């Protein structure tokens, strides 16, 4: 019901606390961050100002532009990898597994790692891929190679592998939901009309699953873009991502306005991606009645 004068008292009692909290601790901090990005830095202080110098620096200084582009590239690769590995797994869970008990068990086993310490899951790749790590030592001891290879770790490939590993469950979750919602009758109707399994997938199942695909891909892209654990643990000297830049600007480099500008940039990028994906979802959204 709409808030009327009569219900206003109850509404206020209920809503004032979370509302105030959200304003004070969510909205205001983001706004403050955005405003600081316009400040200028006069070493060692930051001075309230309104200038675009920080943003210009971000877009013109190759030091920053390469990092930003690299982060974009890696986020896109992670998104693609998560889709390639996650979609078949989701399809398998919904359509190939027929027993409900197995389906729930397998689904649970995919989801649980998602919530188990993000840091640890990235860390495990460090101990697997290193020169003294599990993979190298296994290959050496079985005679596949004579000496440990150093190509596995501390490069962009290892970052992508680690992040794909972390985000596969992120992709599988919304995909399973959306695939599960497709009425079985639609697939039967397609086969009844003479269309075989592959074309049925392509013309019926896949289009109807796009909503979940976009949701998962968006999350994966946004969160990979802002990740700093993977670069630190498994990334190499050429693996600096946007998040590491942010770390240093608020750490040693002590350039809060520049850091805020970069953070604002990330915020804007994520908002654009979210907006695009919800637009897409609404355009393609069909009532499955």
């Amino acid at each position, binding site marked *: *019901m*709409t808030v009327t004068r009569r*219900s206003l008292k109850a*509404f206020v009692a209920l*809503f004032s*606390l*979370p*509302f105030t*909290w*959200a304003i004070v*601790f*969510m909205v205001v*901090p983001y706004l*403050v*961050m955005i405003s600081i990005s316009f400040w200028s830095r006069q070493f060692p202080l930051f001075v309230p100002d309104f200038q675009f110098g920080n943003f210009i620096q971000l877009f013109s200084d190759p030091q920053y532009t390469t990092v930003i582009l690299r982060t974009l590239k890696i986020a896109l690769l992670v998104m693609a990898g998560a889709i390639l*590995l996650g979609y*078949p*797994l989701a399809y398998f869970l919904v359509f*190939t597994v*027929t027993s409900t008990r197995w389906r729930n068990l*397998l689904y*649970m*086993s*995919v*989801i*649980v*790692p998602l*919530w*188990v*310490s993000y*840091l*640890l*899951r990235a*860390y*495990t790749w*460090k*101990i*697997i891929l290193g020169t*003294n*790590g*599990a993979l*190298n030592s*296994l290959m050496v*001891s079985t005679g596949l190679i004579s000496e440990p290879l150093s190509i596995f770790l501390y490069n962009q490939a290892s970052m992508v592998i680690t992040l794909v590993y972390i985000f*596969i*469950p992120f992709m599988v979750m919304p995909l399973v939901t959306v695939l599960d919602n497709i009425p079985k009758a639609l697939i039967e109707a397609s086969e009844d009309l003479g269309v075989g399994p592959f074309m049925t997938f392509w013309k019926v199942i896949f289009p109807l699953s796009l909503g979940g695909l976009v949701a998962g891909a*968006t999350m994966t892209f*946004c*969160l990979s873009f*802002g990740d700093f654990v993977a670069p*630190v*643990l498994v990334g190499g000297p050429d693996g600096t991502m946007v998040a590491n830049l*942010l*770390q240093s600007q*608020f750490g040693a480099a002590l350039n*809060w306005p520049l850091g*805020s500008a970069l*953070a604002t940039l*990330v*915020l804007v990028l994520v908002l654009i991606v979210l907006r695009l994906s919800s637009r897409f979802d609404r355009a393609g959204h069909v009532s499955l009645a």
Partner: protein
Amino acid sequence: MRALRWWQKGMVGFSLMVLAFLYVPIAILVIFSFNDSAVTSFPLSGFTLRWYQAFLSNSQMLAALGNSLIVALCATALCLVLGVTAALALDRYRFPGKGLFQNVILLPLSLPGIVTGIAMLNFYKQIGIPQSLTAVVIGHATALLGIVVSQVMARLAKLDRRLLEASADLGATPVETFRRITLPSIRTSIIGSALLCFTLSFDEIPVTYFLTGREVTLPIYIYSTLRRGITPEINAVGSLIVAVSFVLVILSVTMLRDRR
């Protein structure tokens, strides 16, 4: 049951491989936490519990663990109070700006934590809250609020309005109706999202990184240790965290799942 066709067999194989891919690293972590060697290499050197012992006698790590628990508990409690009231208000009333509010609440979940952490750090510096565990608690509660709100709202949406009407018709006041009808039906989503909140707060890094002072949480401690180098104690504490998280998450998913 029909025999599987060739492409279905391929699907099974591929999916099982992906599943294995998900669990092999965790298995390796657990294996090497019992391995009698300072290096994580094959072949294995023998069974030992000394890494677990080392972790248990590492007072700094234990302090960090204690901090993590306290922070997670406080943040979860805050989240529940704020989230349930917000969910109730959003579910029942329409008001201008409702959609915007919902999007704002959910934003920290999609936004890289690092941005939220920076925003809060900036803000706290301006208003004079020092970097400390208190700041971390506030930060977690804010970032994780969306989880409680979305889960409880989803459950509320399924509540049949006519039950509330029947309750009022039979003479119950709004508070009584809430206590006896609404609350029991959202109980599982409250517990489930509380468990999720706790787990995520316990493991939270980006926001915490910017807001901790001298006292650190466990992930931050591990993170700083890792920057210096690997010690096998990490494997031990990691395995323990994995085990506990497994239990908590399975509990929470079981509770959050619809009883069909």
